[in-house]
């Protein structure tokens, strides 16, 4: 641990959503926290809060995270009204306390959406995303049956565009940011990745129909072009993906009839 002389450490007033497991609702609870190094990540600040709570004999705040380098998609809370906080295009774990002025009040709430029920405090259930992928967010290829990798050239720009969409980490910020709690950006990123690539072509129509059907079934809302999803997305997934989703959906529906 590097020697820090305590100078430059900051204090904050936190308002954190606490909701017991199984409860229908919860409330914002106030906490004071001091001694925060501006280089700390937001989640390390929450770690420190939880250490303080434990020491006082109180139950720590339930909050999820894992890789803490912005790629696993586990973390995600609403900070001062914004999914993943005030800095655009990063995850909660990548957010640093230097982004918050000393003495600021910081409000921390879970991602809110009908399709993301709260499990406890700041932890929500995003299993709906898995069920959407389950319906067709892949190429059906059994292990061992793949052709030699270079038999199918894919133009560099197509591969890069597919990678842009494939970068989605499934965190759910798009849903939390959307006034309708729509999962369109999440679904469209996978649909576009597969629609661009020749490997995805055989199941192209079936995939989009099944994934959209599941999205609706999970209780995610409709897209009405607010664009909040793109603004909140830590991986800068473009809202153009949603246009592709619509086109693919129409194409598949027409082909079916």
């Amino acid at each position: 641990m590097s020697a820090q002389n305590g100078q430059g450490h900051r204090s904050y007033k936190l308002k954190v959503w606490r909701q017991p497991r199984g409860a229908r609702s919860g409330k914002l609870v106030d906490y004071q926290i001091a001694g925060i190094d501006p280089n700390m990540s937001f989640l390390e600040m929450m770690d420190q809060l939880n250490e303080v709570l434990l020491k006082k004999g109180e139950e720590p705040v339930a909050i999820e995270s894992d890789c803490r380098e912005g790629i696993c998609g586990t973390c995600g809370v609403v900070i001062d009204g914004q999914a993943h906080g005030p800095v655009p295009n990063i995850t909660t774990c990548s957010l640093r306390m230097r982004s918050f002025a000393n003495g600021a009040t910081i409000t921390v709430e879970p991602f809110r959406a009908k399709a993301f029920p709260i499990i406890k405090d700041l932890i929500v259930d995003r299993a709906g995303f898995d069920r959407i992928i389950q319906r067709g967010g892949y190429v059906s290829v059994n292990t061992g049956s793949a052709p030699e990798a270079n038999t199918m050239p894919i133009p560099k720009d197509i591969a890069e565009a597919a990678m842009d969409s494939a970068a989605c980490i499934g965190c759910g910020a798009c849903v939390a940011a959307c006034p309708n709690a729509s999962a369109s950006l999440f679904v469209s990123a996978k649909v576009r990745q597969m629609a661009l690539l020749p490997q995805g072509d055989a199941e192209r129509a079936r995939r989009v129909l099944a994934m959209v059907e599941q999205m609706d079934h999970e209780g995610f809302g409709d897209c009405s072009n607010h664009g909040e999803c793109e603004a909140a997305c830590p991986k800068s997934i473009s809202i153009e993906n949603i246009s592709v989703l619509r086109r693919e959906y129409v194409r598949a529906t027409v082909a079916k009839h």
Partner: protein
Amino acid sequence: MNAPAIKQIEVVDGSLDAKAPGGDIRTRWDRHRFEMKLVNPANKRKYTVIVVGTGLAGGSAAASLAELGYNVLNFCIHDSPRRAHSVAAQGGINAAKNYPNDGDSVWRLFYDTIKGGDFRARESNVYRLAQLSENIIDQCVAQGVPFAREYGGLLANRSFGGAQVSRTFYARGQTGQQLLLGCYGALMRQVEAGRVKLFPRREMLDLVVIDGHARGIVCRNLVDGTLERYAADAVVVATGGYSTAYFLSTNAINSNATAIWRCHKRGALFANPCFMQIHPTCIPQLGEGQSKLTLMSESLRNDGRIWVPKQKGDKRAPNDIPEAERDYFLERNYPTFGNLVPRDVASRAAKRMCDDGYGAGPTGLSVYLDFADAIERLGEPVVRDRYANLFEMYHEITNEDPYHVPMQIYPAPHYTMGGLWVDYNLMSTVPGLHVIGEANFSDHGANRLGASALMQGLCDGYFVLPYTIGNYLAGMTPGKVKTDHPAFAEAEGGVRANVAKLLSLKGTKTARELHWQLGRLLWDFVGMSRSAKGLADTIDKIRELRAEFWQNVQIEGTADDVNQALEYAGRVADYFELAELIAIDALSRDESCGCHLREEHQTPEGEAMRDDDKFAYVAAWEYTGDFGKPRLHREKLDFENVHLAARNYK
């Protein structure tokens, strides 16, 4: 413990059968596949296999076994299988495709891996890995993994730490994520087909062994705390490595050793626990309260140049230090490989420079990784194209812009070559218990080469285990064991008692504080350089801390709720036991090899000196009930194809 105590350790030779076939190494896997028994296709659905973990190894195994027709139960601690820590691998995946026409071959990948591992891996396994590497790329491309491509549309390759050929396939700096999403897709397809049943938010807390065979697991449901029993005909553990024992590592916050450690206590030997890779290019610790270290892909070493000031304690800003006053110490010491020496060599060299007072930055615990030359040579757009996301990540964390200021880097615990001992079939010493991916010890010897972890995880899961597990299952009647067997009650009772004990302690230190203390001990004395005295003292201190943990840990909340403090304390309890074994292994391996540098065994320049006459073996430790007296089983390593030689990257 002192040196005589190590001499009291019971040593057993000849007890381990690696089941590695003999003969021409190039045809061993083919012959072995032919010799293995097959399960009739119509019968496969009658067999149930538990797979714990959904990373590259566990996910690929679960999907592939289900495709074959087995009934698979797949568990993970995350809310979704897509979050396993394989997702964070950045740089790439090796394969001996030789697309760049630069002289690569299966033999060269095999040779490089054996040599890179400093001759402490099993030749048969490594050769098979090199052979199957090509199939992995085919499989991933067919799944729609968007690998980097050349303008002609064919796959791009780059060179990667420690290799002189370009054999690394990559998807920007997110290769692990893209491979995992491919694998996750294959897994979810089998969930949809009803052949995989998924159990997220479950933590495996014990292995159930019946009549000597692994027949099930006990899990804690992380939402409501229920202890759940699952029975199967075989168990596959793919729960990753144990770097998190060191507190600060590049691993995820939830990565842990509990599943493999509990398997160890049920009879699975733990091999080479002291082989812990310290990755050279990580962002140095920035301040108090830090929870993890972030790795910067070693691909950066392809274009970045590593240096320190020539003057000790030079505190000038890096851009104010003139060229003539910089020491490019890797290029100076290793002119052939330069900045691309293997990880262990690069890490130790950086540590030496810092220990000698040449370290950069306010703490003196970092070295510079400088892109100024690359930007001048290639232009900023090319550098941006190659490394943009890594530079952004660095900028986000440190608030410094690496396009204009050299990065500061320092080594950090990253990957564990050690793990549960497995034979050529990836089966542990508990029949039926298979261990794949980082959780096993198999292919990397004493040092793993860059871009080889993804290769091994997928190789085990897609292309090895699906065959070898059939050989185990073919001999048995499926579905014999049910969860009402007394062994399940015994295991569940043990887990319940452990949880209750942790909650009852009501001490004054948090698990995090105790874990931090343990991590410091391991980093200082079982880290990049180790000595007999330091290790012996550390073993005593680990025991003291462990005793303190079991008297004084503080956890709030209850067992029947989401309780992250309880989950964490359980994992830390296991680190305290594992840590002692890591130190004992490091003490008993009285040589230097790969990542394991014993200060007593180094050249005057600080290079590792192996002792092949005494230590060309896998150290596989048996739990005896006394953490201080594990029994050592030695698997002798024979090198018939790559001749034992000192590594030289000069």
